[in-house]
């Protein structure tokens, strides 16, 4: 044991005057480029704050978001809504609930919607895209017809239709509606890069070597096809937040508003937007900022993963 490791060290020494022992994989070199990108750092900071806020929301929020603490300051007749005051830094909403606490806890729902919708869309897209790209033939034709039909419908319209299919709208139907729109996009993206991989030299080389088909698909084709999909996932996190907000805004969000969500808060603010713009400003600003964060990370990831930019 000792002798073999010593022999290894000597070999190394003889071979590569101080060359690094472990190689630099593509992922590692992409990360090194990413770390130096200012756009990535800004995006990551936004996402970081957002995620920490969502995780710590139950402790940061001073009030129960469902309690109508400021109910006595609300008057529908005189269009009065509680303004900012000590203990309630952002004031209250139309029902006298603490806006600050609702914003904080709303981040949890927004994060949940974004992550779940992306995961479901990605999962569905991965399965369909892998089937189409790896098997080809009639499987490919069938899958791609389906995908093209879905893509031909404007995405928001599709999401609205899916959302409207459910008798009772909940947070989950919003997630599903947003996710289904993303499935064909992921499927198409993955299939495209799988096809390019299938025609590539290194897949031909693996075939020539006699590597089994399953290993070729899962070891060579899929990992090399994931780059664009990873980038797309990051962008979809942003899209999902905006789509979910749009659905809520259009009245297809969760019916129950005791659990706050930014899109839903924005939707409810419509009626009073002229007199009380702060009710729309905070959720809208938060949605845009977070979506921007994910987009910045996605775009810088795209640059970093581009092999042309390697060192």
């Amino acid at each position, binding site marked *: 044991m000792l002798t073999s490791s010593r022999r290894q060290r000597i070999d190394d020494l003889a*071979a590569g005057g101080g060359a690094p022992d472990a190689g*630099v994989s593509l992922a590692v070199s992409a990360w090194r480029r990413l770390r130096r990108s200012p756009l990535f750092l800004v995006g990551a900071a936004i996402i970081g704050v957002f995620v920490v806020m969502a995780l710590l929301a139950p402790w940061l929020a001073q009030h129960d978001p469902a309690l109508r603490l400021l109910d006595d300051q609300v008057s529908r007749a005189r269009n009065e809504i509680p303004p900012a005051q000590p203990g309630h830094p952002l004031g209250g909403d139309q029902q006298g609930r603490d806006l600050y606490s609702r914003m904080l806890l709303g981040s949890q729902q927004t994060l949940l919607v974004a992550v779940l919708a992306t995961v479901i869309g990605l999962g569905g897209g991965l399965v369909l895209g892998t089937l189409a790209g790896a098997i080809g033939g009639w499987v490919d034709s069938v899958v791609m017809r389906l995908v093209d039909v879905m893509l031909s419908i404007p995405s928001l319209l599709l999401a609205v239709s899916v959302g409207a299919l459910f008798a009772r709208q909940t947070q989950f139907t919003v997630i599903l509606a947003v996710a289904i729109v993303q499935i064909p996009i992921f499927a198409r993206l993955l299939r495209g890069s799988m096809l390019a991989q299938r025609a590539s030299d290194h897949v031909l080389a693996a075939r*020539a070597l006699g590597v089994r088909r399953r290993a070729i698909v899962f070891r060579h084709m899929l990992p090399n096809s994931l780059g664009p999909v990873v980038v797309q996932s990051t962008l979809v996190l942003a899209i999902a937040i905006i789509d979910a907000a749009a659905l809520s805004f259009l009245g297809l969000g969760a019916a129950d508003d005791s659990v706050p969500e930014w899109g839903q808060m924005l939707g409810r603010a419509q009626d009073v937007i002229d007199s009380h713009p702060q009710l729309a400003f905070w959720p809208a600003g938060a949605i845009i900022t977070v979506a921007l964060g994910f987009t910045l990370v996605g775009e810088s990831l795209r640059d970093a993963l581009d092999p042309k930019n390697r060192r």
Partner: protein
Amino acid sequence: MSDVLVDVDGLKVHFPIKRGIVHDRTVGYVYAVDGVDLAIRRGETYGLVGESGCGKSTLGRAVLRLSEPTAGRVVFDGTDLAQLSGEPLRRMRRRMQMVFQDPLSSLDPRQSVQSLLVEGLRAHELDRGAEATAARLRELLDVVGLPANALRRYPHEFSGGQRQRIGIARALTVEPDLIVADEPVSALDVSVQAQVLNLLEDLQAQFGLTYLVIAHDLAVVRHIADRVGVMYLGGIVEEADADALYTEPRHPYTRALLSAIPVPDPEVEDRREQILLTGDLPSPAAPPSGCRFHTRCPWRQPSRCDTERPPLREIRPGHRVACHYAEDIAAGRITAPTGLSASRG
């Protein structure tokens, strides 16, 4: 045991040209390989030479059954490869390997050298325990002249020559009988080309390998081949022992290729025959009738050249030529008319 390892018989590979948005209509074919007969003997190096696009790679892949032949057969060590599919074909791949032109694109960028090498062992159940595998990998690296610390590094961290050594080591993992090397050095710096060719020669001697080496110029093949086949537009036009081919080329196309290689001796360079080919290489989708070379041949005759395809015939033992007038040209009974070729004698 027959002396021939690979027997290619009437091999054709035609690629359909598809048009149309809704329904793919086949509007024609690329006659990439169009009737090739050749035999590669055990332990020899067969050099295959021809211009870009003449079908060399397609032929090489068809020999390994990486592309489906349209017609003809490839018999590998007595087994007709067309009869194999699925698992038996996969098993057969252990005995025939390929080295690629572009060593970077043919190595998966996400795999370390170690996993690239282990993959072949694993695919053919040749990995017998961690210890034995580690020893085998060390041996392979040593054999191709790579440092032992290469294992944990990735293809993009190596130079072109080293990458090609990785590709060669990978082919060797499964202890093949045949290696098809498709332009193994044309992507490399001139300074390392000779090293890699020498490595291939050493390995052949060490492991008793049989080679099909593909190249686009005769100079590369000259170093390494025992026999050479010259390809033009999907067919072999001349085949001979390497020495015979270089000293007594009999096909007009071979003579043209040879005359394009500069000779270091200025006096010889001045006196030697120079044949400039006129016209462009015809498209393999619309090959000329009769002799494929007749559109560019300085010796073309009005009678048969554009109507009758010359078969590859043996003009003397071991030397085959596909030209109706090979003997007449050699004997000087037919000369190239001036204007079609700029030849100096």
